């Protein structure tokens, strides 16, 4: 019994840590935060694992935990940034670097930054659908939302992303919360 739980969590961890890590990394765009959140996801899962009755697919369960931990992280960040608003207003964004053309990699970096500006529900759908390549049905299952909501959030998220990517790069504040 002792070994069984150890083996189960090891198997789950080894099978899914990359997916969870990757999802959270796109969500936070910060490696340190991602490591903390990944640890939180698997520790939460472990605590409930003895009661797991197989009614939910492990991956779906893991992502549902990851989703709430990500949203919680977003809220904390929002609060933190709200209180440091004055500080942020004094930071000049590096997005305003007047370069005529951004290289391919720089464009992707810009895209990652733009992704961070999306609200969590749009961000999650775009990460899973566009970046991780899950189908509408799978995305709906992993995020525990309807397929219709996936489609709507995806469409709206994309529109916003398009807007952020075409906005003038000079000026502005570095963070959406300011």
């Amino acid at each position, binding site marked *: 019994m002792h070994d069984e*739980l150890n083996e189960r969590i090891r198997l789950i961890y080894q099978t899914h*840590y*990359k997916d969870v890590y990757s999802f959270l990394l796109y969500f936070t765009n910060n490696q340190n935060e991602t*490591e903390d959140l990944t640890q939180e996801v698997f*520790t939460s899962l*472990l605590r409930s694992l003895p009661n797991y009755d197989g009614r939910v697919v492990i991956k779906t369960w893991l992502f549902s935990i990851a989703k709430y931990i990500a949203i919680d992280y977003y809220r904390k960040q929002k609060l933190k940034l709200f209180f440091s608003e004055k500080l942020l207003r004094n930071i000049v964004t590096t997005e305003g670097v007047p370069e005529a053309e951004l290289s391919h990699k720089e464009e*992707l970096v810009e895209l990652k930054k733009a992704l961070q500006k999306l609200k969590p529900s749009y961000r999650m759908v775009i990460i899973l659908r566009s970046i991780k390549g899950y189908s*509408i*049905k799978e995305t709906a299952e992993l995020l525990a939302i309807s397929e219709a909501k996936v489609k709507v959030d995806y469409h709206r998220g994309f529109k916003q992303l*398009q807007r952020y990517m075409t906005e003038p790069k000079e000026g502005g504040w570095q963070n959406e919360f300011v």
Partner: protein
Amino acid sequence: MNSFEELEQQLKRLPELEQSPRPEFVAYLDEKLQKEATAVKRRLRHRRILTHTATAAVVILLGSWVTAMPWQQPSPQASTSPADSNIASLPLDHPQEPAATTHVAEQPNSAGQTQTKAHVPKPPANTGVPEAQAISPTDNVKEQPPTEQYNNEPDKISPPLQIAQSYLNEMLGDESQHYTINTKQTDLKEGKIVFSRMIHGVPFYNDSYSVGVEHDTVSYFKFNRLPEKQRNLSQFPPPVDVLSEKEALKIIADTMQPVYRYNKNGALTKRYELDFPGYLDAKTGKMLAKPEQLSQVPSPKSSIPVKSQGKKLEVHSVNDAITLLQQEFGVTFDGERGTSPTSISYGKGSGTEYTWAGADKTITAQVSPNGVLTAYHVQDTASETNGSKRAPREDDVKKALEFLERYLDKKITAVGYLGSNWNEREIQYTFGAFVKGIPLKGRTYHVTLDQSGKVVGMEDSKNASKNPPLSFEAASREAAISEYSTKHKLELIYIWPKKASDDENSTDAPQLVYQQK
């Protein structure tokens, strides 16, 4: 720059920048999880040992006490207040009784199950409660949860029910006695214990408290309390002059109707199902809709005969899909990407979804796991919309039906219009089907037309309901009714329906209703 397509391509390239988890972090977390797993197991083992020890102690104590007691002594009164005994509480009465510790010692016969029966409290003295509500002592004994929940040494062990009950007592004080464990929503495996309000011995699930217990500690406390107005007990009608469970069952059973459904093998089968919206007014016998059942797809109200041709749309590869879309539906692949799909998704059990995103249109096709095209859609993304929406038109419906009947199962004899929804670019019509006049459940058919009235999409949609109706594979309606009446039970509860703003006759007051148990 940054068109939809470009952006999608850029997103797909993002993994190029993806940082893999640091190996030291991966190793660290693996090790940490192993240690944590060991700690969790240790905690569970300790709990189990304590539970067994306490159970054994109780058995020994009772055994010795039973031996010492003279059998002629009259039975003491059971402790549970009859006012609080009810449908929801009975199966779990013992574990939640805070006073169980002392009462066990007072029951001379409690060592044996049959003897215990005689001392189980009777149902509420309220004669208005229908017969069906009364749970026999036998039922009570049968439904007892594992012994782990029945230990009576709370100082030594803390099973989730006792922890939750103690917590509720602390939080609510005397008011907690009005709440009993809701066996329907309580999930001991998940450590979730739900207490619902009892009024006149009838549960009112809309007023409840939920206590989470994890590793012998309360992990959360949630409540679903009502506004002060709704807490006024005088508004709750006592359960008198209500239909008996038998009468209610008969009314519900009368809604049994034949339906057709596709079985797992894709064959059409005739079944019998209840057309019961969830609640039955216990006083008037009128049907009331349960909010979660409102989402079920209704049967069409009228039917239009069709000559179904049953044309097969077989697809076994992406090339098959392209050929079919071109030849059968006249779809052109003239985008810069040619015929190479921009994305292919493989859903679990739902088949494959192909997308071709071109400069001026997006084409999607869904293929079921057994190789049948179940949906296609060509969406114009280039032309500007004039902002006006195309309203449903009779000739559109006719056109949609003419299109649809080519692909409908030959056994479908008629379809019925269910509705439409539209945006600036297109309008989608939805139909239900009939087989020999009997509704086909679980399937709807959609045809999409663009602003010019051209068919640009079709879908054969499976509708899986989270709350499917009770369904019987019986030889006749009478047999189905008989099976339903013998195998199913009802439960009397209070509900407080929201007053519909446009319904002058609806009341803003609690109601006594029956629901499926």
